[in-house]
């Protein structure tokens, strides 16, 4: 195992296997991955801050086995912040909190290419600060169908007085976020609301949408997965890499841009790779910033 050291504000951090190609069919080494996260850090860190991180580690690259790791590894440096979060089964797990660049680099050195976080912060694990609609296309439906569904969702939510924001999942789907940022929101609220919305969407667009989890219901349709609105679920963090054949990023898109891209009919155009992600954030800033700060109340609950 090769070792390199990097000097950071908190001291010297050992990095291992920098030359290892973790995206072999594209050619993207661990050094490239660390470089990506270093560049995107100012944008991704606010979205990771104080959230219990689930690591999804690909020690042998995206084509080999991965494993999820909830418990913050015991061999962590002393400065890595952690938080204990109660689980459904009554147990508590000590998670890593990625609150600074050093921790982000340390986590990436563990080949946790994908960063998954809950919709609530570790200090208030039962208070979601956003509601999410996870749009997942069932073959042969694709990301363009998701875009159509997302645009209808945006209009419906807007009629309900709610602003929404969209990002690619970095895989095949799209994620619609409705920022709430209120102390009195519960997962029961977001679940009830999102389930009712998914039901209405299915009722009015039965050929395009399903609100049902069952695989055979999803063929050729966009599954609106409202059940992600749960304290025990995590979502891929905005700006995180995905473990696909290429280093795609879960990336925010402007609604106007989505309208244009949906009209073009090329699903590939909706995917954002690492280099484009860095370039676009530098140009446009964090399009997902409002998700962290905008206060909205779910009506009719």
């Amino acid at each position: 195992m090769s070792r390199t050291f990097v000097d950071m504000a908190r001291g010297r951090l050992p990095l291992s296997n920098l030359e290892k190609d973790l995206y072999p069919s594209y050619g993207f080494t661990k050094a490239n991955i660390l470089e990506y996260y270093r560049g995107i850090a100012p944008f991704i860190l606010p979205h990771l801050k104080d959230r219990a991180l689930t690591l999804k580690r690909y020690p042998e690259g995206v084509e080999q086995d991965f494993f999820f790791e909830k418990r913050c590894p015991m061999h962590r440096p002393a400065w890595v912040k952690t938080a204990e979060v109660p689980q459904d089964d009554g147990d508590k797990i000590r998670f890593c909190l990625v609150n600074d660049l050093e921790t982000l680099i340390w986590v990436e050195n563990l080949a946790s290419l994908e960063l998954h976080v809950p919709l609530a912060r570790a200090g208030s694990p039962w208070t979601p600060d956003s509601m999410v609609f996870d749009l997942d296309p069932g073959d042969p439906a694709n990301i363009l169908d998701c875009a159509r569904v997302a645009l209808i969702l945006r209009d419906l939510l807007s009629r309900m007085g709610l602003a929404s924001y969209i990002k690619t999942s970095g895989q095949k789907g799209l994620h619609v976020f409705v920022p709430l940022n209120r102390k009195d929101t519960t997962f029961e609220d977001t679940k009830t609301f999102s389930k009712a919305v998914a039901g209405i969407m299915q009722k009015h667009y039965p050929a395009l949408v399903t609100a049902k989890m069952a695989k055979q219901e999803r063929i050729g349709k966009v599954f609106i997965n409202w059940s992600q609105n749960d304290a025990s679920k995590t979502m891929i963090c905005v700006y995180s890499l995905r473990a696909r054949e290429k280093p795609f990023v879960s990336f925010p898109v402007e609604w106007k841009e989505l309208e244009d891209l949906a009209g073009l009919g090329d699903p590939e155009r909706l995917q954002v790779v690492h280099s484009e992600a860095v370039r676009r954030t530098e140009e446009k800033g964090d399009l997902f910033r409002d998700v962290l700060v905008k206060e909205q109340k779910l009506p009719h609950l």
Partner: protein
Amino acid sequence: MAVQGIWSGTISFSLVAIPVRLVKAIEPRGVSFHLLHSKDYSRLSRKMFCPEENTMVPPDEIVRGYEILPDKYILMTDEELESVSPERSRTIEIVEFIDTKDVDPIYYDHPYYLVPSKGGEKAYQLLVEVMRRTNKAGLAKFVMAEREYLVAVFSRDGALALTTLHYSDEILPDEDMSPKKGKIGAEEESRMKKSIEQMIEDFNPGKYADERRKKLVDLLATKAKEKALVEAPAVEEEEGEGPADLVAALEESMRKVKAR
């Protein structure tokens, strides 16, 4: 992170009122199983069945009846039940103090701890200490989840423990249990005393564990390693329903979206 409370309020008597939270003191560790359909490993659910009509009964057709004579019932509505439920309350009102040794263990039902909330720490400590020194337990009434409980509050290891008690009319009489008194011979008595004395130990329940549970957990671990797992089919969700208000508002908004 603080333990989640089951209830929070104050414990009080005469002029004392201490803010506290009630937390559970025991966690049953039984291994529980789900019932699955052997054909596809779906989780089975319980439904209400009417044997007369040979059909499932939806929730809105289910009412509550008290059987007063065979096949004769008095109907009871939710409202009527609620009318006899105690008012919700935020206090554990100690009504008397008793000697701890006077509490008959047969009355013990379910144990909890009381932990002090912000601002109550000092008074809490004082109460714990005084109850410990005087060997007194508080007898209190307390409403939780629409039931009024009789509870005993003890000082235990520097904290307050609360145990719900059975009401005295729930305790079955023991008259029939004890045999008629006969004469006890002095020799028999001393023999039995001796054999008991030979077995005296300190109370140390940690020595004992649920052996069946241990074996069961080991068996589960072995089977999990062998990957003897079966998978349930993806869950069929119900049609998107929701609060009537919300659904109506969504329908109205959807109409406008489509009209554009």
